[in-house]
């Protein structure tokens, strides 16, 4: 049961092979048995899950079920969930029981999905290895000595270890695609504004975007059908029709123009990763695609620009955590300033503090033009690179991450080394473009991800391109031996 995709589970439920309650119980039992090794869930909502499954079974029997009715899902602990602890991986929100639902959560509730629990993540989504979580690091199911990637590390690990059929993630600089790559699963970061940010705890508001993480592109499409859409409660939500993302999965790739940016295959790329990605490109040629060599000349600007824009926005967003209205408050504050400083100093972890400090610095008097305006101009150049590329090609491909999963503790001493592991994913966030990661091989035991970047609102095409590859390869259906 636990090796089935959402598409398969949905069919089984409809045909009465098993009930949603039985299916949910299988996952709850697996979480109980295996999650001690992986540490992928912060909260498991077993009772609520079984109650929701029971309701779903009534709908299925009555013939009023949708595709996601009764399907168990894991939600990243960044999405506010009414009546459930929503920690964002931080001590700051360890005591926070959300009083409302994020739109992503209410959309899935409306679709009849069953929430198994909330997944572990880097604190406030700041990290590339899930090691900054207040709840401890998540382990990579393929190799328990390795990181799962981040920040949606728990969401990637639950899918790889078969502790949920699929999950949600958020991606500010690669936080869906990089952990998807490192855990050998499929993940999609939609176009900025496609999925509502309402109730999704903000990190960098001009970059944050939620998306699905699943075994297959087909499952990502089914989830996108529930997730995407206009939401008046998100001021940057896009008013634009949502296509049926499943409808175009089977389109032929004959004549598809794939751009390969030379900057994504340059120094710093691991040889094994390069070979796996090149083999995937060969597969696409067999499917009728045409390869075009392109250049994204300002690629090297993306990490530097990001580490001004993201910290600046984070320092503003995280000023709401003041120890007054919700969240952590220090004991016996002497005065209001002491209350602010100690509540924040005691409850934020080192990476979050570093980013708040960088943000406060680049926005402070006298530095704004040199840093923030410079970064916004660099962002424009990066965005123009993509605009020019998409005049010549339909999609852009390359590696998701320069290496496979690294070892736990390997990069924690030097933040800058950690930041560079997002060198290929950050540019799409700065431009606001959609991107995917699709499993395309291994180096040793550790998975490799192929990144596919599309033009604005071209999620359906990305899913089609990924699905066709998955019809001809089986990397996405491999299971880590310890969790088979």
């Amino acid at each position, binding site marked *: 049961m636990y090796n089935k995709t959402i598409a398969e589970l949905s069919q089984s439920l409809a045909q009465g092979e098993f009930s949603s309650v039985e299916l949910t119980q299988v996952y709850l039992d697996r979480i109980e048995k295996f999650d001690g090794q992986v540490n992928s869930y912060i909260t498991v909502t077993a009772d609520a899950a079984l109650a929701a499954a029971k309701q779903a079974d009534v709908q299925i029997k009555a013939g009023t079920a949708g595709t996601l009715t009764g399907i168990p899902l894991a939600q990243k602990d960044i999405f506010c969930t009414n009546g459930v602890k929503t920690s964002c991986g931080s001590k700051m929100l360890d005591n926070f029981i959300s009083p409302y639902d994020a739109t992503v959560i209410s959309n899935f509730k409306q679709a009849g999905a069953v929430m198994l629990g909330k997944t572990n993540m880097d604190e406030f989504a700041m990290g590339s290895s899930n090691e900054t979580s207040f709840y401890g690091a998540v382990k990579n199911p393929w190799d328990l000595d390795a990181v799962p990637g981040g920040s949606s590390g728990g969401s990637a690990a639950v899918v790889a270890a078969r502790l949920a059929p699929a999950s949600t993630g958020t991606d500010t600089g690669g936080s869906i695609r990089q952990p998807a790559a490192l855990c050998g699963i499929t993940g999609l970061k939609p176009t*900025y504004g496609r999925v509502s940010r309402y109730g999704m705890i903000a990190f960098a508001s001009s970059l944050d975007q939620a998306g699905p993480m699943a075994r297959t592109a087909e499952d990502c499409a089914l989830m996108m059908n529930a997730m995407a859409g206009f939401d008046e409660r998100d001021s940057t939500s896009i008013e634009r029709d949502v296509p049926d993302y499943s409808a175009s999965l089977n389109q032929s790739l004959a004549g598809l123009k794939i751009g390969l940016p030379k900057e994504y295959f340059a120094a710093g790329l691991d040889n094994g990763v390069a070979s796996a990605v090149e083999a995937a490109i060969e597969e696409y040629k067999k499917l009728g695609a045409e390869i075009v060599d392109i250049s994204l000349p300002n690629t090297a600007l993306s990490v530097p620009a990001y580490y001004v824009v993201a910290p600046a926005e984070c320092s503003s967003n995280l000023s709401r955590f003041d120890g007054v209205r919700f969240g952590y408050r220090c004991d016996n504050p002497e005065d209001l300033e002491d209350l602010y400083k100690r509540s924040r100093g005691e409850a934020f972890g080192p990476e979050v503090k570093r980013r708040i400090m960088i943000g406060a610095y680049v926005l402070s008097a006298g530095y704004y033009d040199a840093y923030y305006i410079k970064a916004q101009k660099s962002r424009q150049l990066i965005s123009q690179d993509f605009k020019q590329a998409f005049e010549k090609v339909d999609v852009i491909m390359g590696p998701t991450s320069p290496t496979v999963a690294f070892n736990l503790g390997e990069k924690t001493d030097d933040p800058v080394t950690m930041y560079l592991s997002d060198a290929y994913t950050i540019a799409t966030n700065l431009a606001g473009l959609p991107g995917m990661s699709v499993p395309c091989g291994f180096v040793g035991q550790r998975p490799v991800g192929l990144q596919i970047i599309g033009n604005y609102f071209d999620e359906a095409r990305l899913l089609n391109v990924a699905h066709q590859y998955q019809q001809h390869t089986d990397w996405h259906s491999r299971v880590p031996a310890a969790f088979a």
Partner: protein
Amino acid sequence: MSIEPSDVEKIAHLARLEVTEADVPEYVRNLSNILDLVAQMDGVDTDKVEPMAHPMAMAQRLREDVVTETDQRDHFQQIAPQTENGLYLVPQVIE
């Protein structure tokens, strides 16, 4: 670009973050490294480039000026650290 211990203290105050004296040297080292990374932008001429604030280059949506929120004060204050008579309590500010 290297920053000084006094910069760390100043930024920490601006950000209302308690930083202990023992942590200052590590902040100096890490923040300087991050600013060195950021400085890689300096080599690129951006004189004639428009700053990009938002990926969609769109204006903020406006709506009718009508009440859309219901009063949920009691509900929201259930999770507050300290309240009294519907007010959030903080240490005394005005003598």
